[in-house]
């Protein structure tokens, strides 16, 4: 249990007050942003008016999801070193974005990922494929965040089984949270567009960095800034001993069955590849590069993002090991077997230690709980915006209307799409609220790495690449990743599966990347060479010159 009853209500009041303040501020910004949103460029790309630093912060806010903040801290707190593998993959991935994608995409595209993919191809098939992939990736990711938020609320507000809060038991509170998060993200996106969403993400990134920094300093201070003694204490209190500081407790586990050990290790490699190649194919990340005026500003924003995200992931080490040392493996596992409450529990322990007893603990817990909700909100808003932009700009304007529509009409469709996608996500989130859907984040990365990234890289760097290649790469990567996961142990045939009581599993890995990523690249190549279509050399000249020089950039 996080809290005794008396301080539980103190925390609740603090958490709700802080969260209401955050919502009030962000809604204020959203309304202000809506007044600044006059045309399609404002709605989709925030008027391309953000600075490199602002966009770097917003990228951080868009990228550092609850899975990063609560999930990685939790994995480290319970399984020690292995959580760090995630942090490293999530960070190194930004080099792909920096070196190969950000500037070229910024120079040659307008609003969506498909602007670059379809640049020298036939519009309808490529844009349809890109829209399907964008919506699939974003909705997977979105669902994982929403269900995660629902699961957290009961814990963070201290609603224990059998008790109620405002007349809601834990289950009702879960549903209410999903509806509330969904409603807020719809408002941010439909009213504030990219400008509103960007400011929400900047405010969130600021809160998250400050919160993590304060916790990190307090954890390190507790060990007189001696990292070794923090690690030693964490290992001792984790109940796992020395193994806690070594790789192998969570990923690539060595078990009695040699075949299973082999699969576990390949699964670790597969996860590693998907993490590092997925980021530069996530549509909600890619569209952030359009919010700055030039490619140089896009480069600066990735540099800032690398600095911000890297510092954050370094701090997750202190948070995770700090939680293991100061809270202990036992109490974390009792509260949440997945470790998702390790960071909030650490906040409470630190608050009690430094800010004066129960009230200090309740207050600091509330602060971090509010930061966690802000984190979720900023990420889901970014995802909703990415999928509605693609529905409106790619599918409606360029496929249904074949480019014969006004930008005004497009923005109306984008707003409607945000509403529809938001509503569908709320319903799916409620249906899935008691199902383990955490794997959807890893799946989103795998689809992005298997379908989107090959298509983007071929488009930018391979002269011969054509319509068939782009379509094959996207569908090939998307379908293989989804199908392999459907037949994997995360969906059926294991105790922790989405459907633990059914078994249609035959694919042995939880992460499909090691198969589906090469397959995506292979499909893109095969589609290109097997098709009779000749690459449009003039369009490639235009794309390449524009991408590299910024000539004619929007």
């Amino acid at each position, binding site marked *: 249990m996080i809290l005794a009853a008396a301080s539980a209500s103190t925390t609740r009041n603090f958490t709700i007050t802080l969260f209401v303040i955050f919502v009030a501020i962000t809604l204020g910004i959203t309304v202000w942003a809506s007044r600044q949103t006059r045309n399609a460029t404002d709605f989709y790309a925030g008027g391309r008016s953000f600075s490199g630093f602002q966009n770097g912060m917003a990228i951080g806010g868009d990228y550092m999801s609850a899975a990063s903040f609560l999930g990685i801290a939790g994995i480290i707190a319970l399984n020690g070193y292995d959580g760090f593998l995630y942090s*490293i993959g999530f960070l190194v991935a930004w080099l792909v974005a920096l*070196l190969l994608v950000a500037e070229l995409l910024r120079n040659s595209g307008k609003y969506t990922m498909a602007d670059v993919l379809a640049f020298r191809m036939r519009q309808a098939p490529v844009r349809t494929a890109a829209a399907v992939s964008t919506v699939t990736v974003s909705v997977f990711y979105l669902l994982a965040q929403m269900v995660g938020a629902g699961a957290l609320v009961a814990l963070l507000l201290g609603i224990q089984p059998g008790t109620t809060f405002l007349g809601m038991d834990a289950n009702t509170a879960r549903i209410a949270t999903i509806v509330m998060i969904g409603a807020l993200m719809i408002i941010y996106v439909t009213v504030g567009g990219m400008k509103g969403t960007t400011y929400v993400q900047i405010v969130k990134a600021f809160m998250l960095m400050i919160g993590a920094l304060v916790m990190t300093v307090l954890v390190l201070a507790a060990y007189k800034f001696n990292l070794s003694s923090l*690690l030693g204490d964490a290992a001792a209190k984790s109940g796992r001993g020395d193994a806690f500081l070594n790789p192998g407790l969570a990923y690539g586990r060595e078990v009695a069955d040699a075949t299973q050990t082999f699969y576990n290790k390949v699964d670790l490699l597969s996860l590693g590849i998907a993490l590092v190649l997925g980021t530069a194919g996530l549509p909600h990340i890619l569209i952030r590069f359009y919010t700055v005026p030039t490619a140089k500003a896009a480069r600066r924003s990735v540099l800032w993002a690398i600095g911000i995200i890297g510092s954050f992931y370094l701090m997750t080490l202190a948070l995770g090991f700090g939680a293991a040392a100061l809270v202990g493996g036992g109490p974390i596992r009792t509260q949440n077997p997945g470790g998702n409450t390790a960071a909030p529990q650490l906040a409470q322990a630190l608050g009690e230690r430094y800010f004066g007893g129960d009230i200090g603990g309740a207050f600091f817990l509330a602060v971090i709980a509010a930061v966690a909700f802000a984190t979720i909100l900023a990420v889901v808003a970014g995802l909703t915006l990415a999928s509605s932009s693609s529905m409106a700009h790619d599918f409606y304007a360029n496929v249904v209307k074949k480019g014969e529509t006004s930008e005004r009409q497009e923005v109306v469709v984008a707003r409607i799409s945000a509403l529809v996608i938001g509503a569908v996500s709320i319903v799916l989130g409620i249906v899935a609220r008691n199902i383990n859907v955490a794997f959807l984040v890893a799946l989103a990365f795998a689809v992005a790495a298997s379908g989107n990234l090959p298509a983007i890289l071929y488009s930018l760097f391979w002269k011969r690449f054509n319509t068939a290649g782009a379509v094959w790469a996207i569908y090939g990567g998307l379908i293989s990743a989804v199908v392999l996961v459907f037949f994997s142990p995360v969906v059926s045939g294991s105790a922790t599966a989405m459907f633990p009581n059914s078994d249609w599993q035959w694919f042995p890995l939880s992460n499909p990347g090691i198969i589906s990523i090469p397959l995506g690249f292979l499909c893109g190549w095969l589609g290109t060479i097997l098709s009779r279509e000749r690459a449009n050399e003039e369009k490639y000249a235009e794309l*390449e010159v524009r991408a590299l020089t910024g000539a*004619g950039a929007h």
Partner: protein
Amino acid sequence: MTTEAPPTASESYADVQRSPEFVGLRKALRGFVFPMTVAFFVWYALYVILSAYARDFMSTKIVGHINVALVFGLLQFVSTFLIAWLYERYSARRLDPTAAELRERVESGGTR
């Protein structure tokens, strides 16, 4: 902000693409980003592979409770920051001036 391409866009784009300046720019860009991508990917893959298959090595203690795995992981952060910084420097010196010149040339509509 929006700059429309010149009327003879395709022609001049193809001309620019063939020009020695552009060929040089492409070479300078690819000459940096491709090898660097291979380098950081191999370096990262080495880290993941060692984490999976060389557990004894990774578990070796260096100082106190700090082991090879932790140091290797932290070095991934260092290399990421370092590559980002090197790219920033390289692009400012070697890529941006030529890119700006070529952009000017395309947008003023002129070929050579």
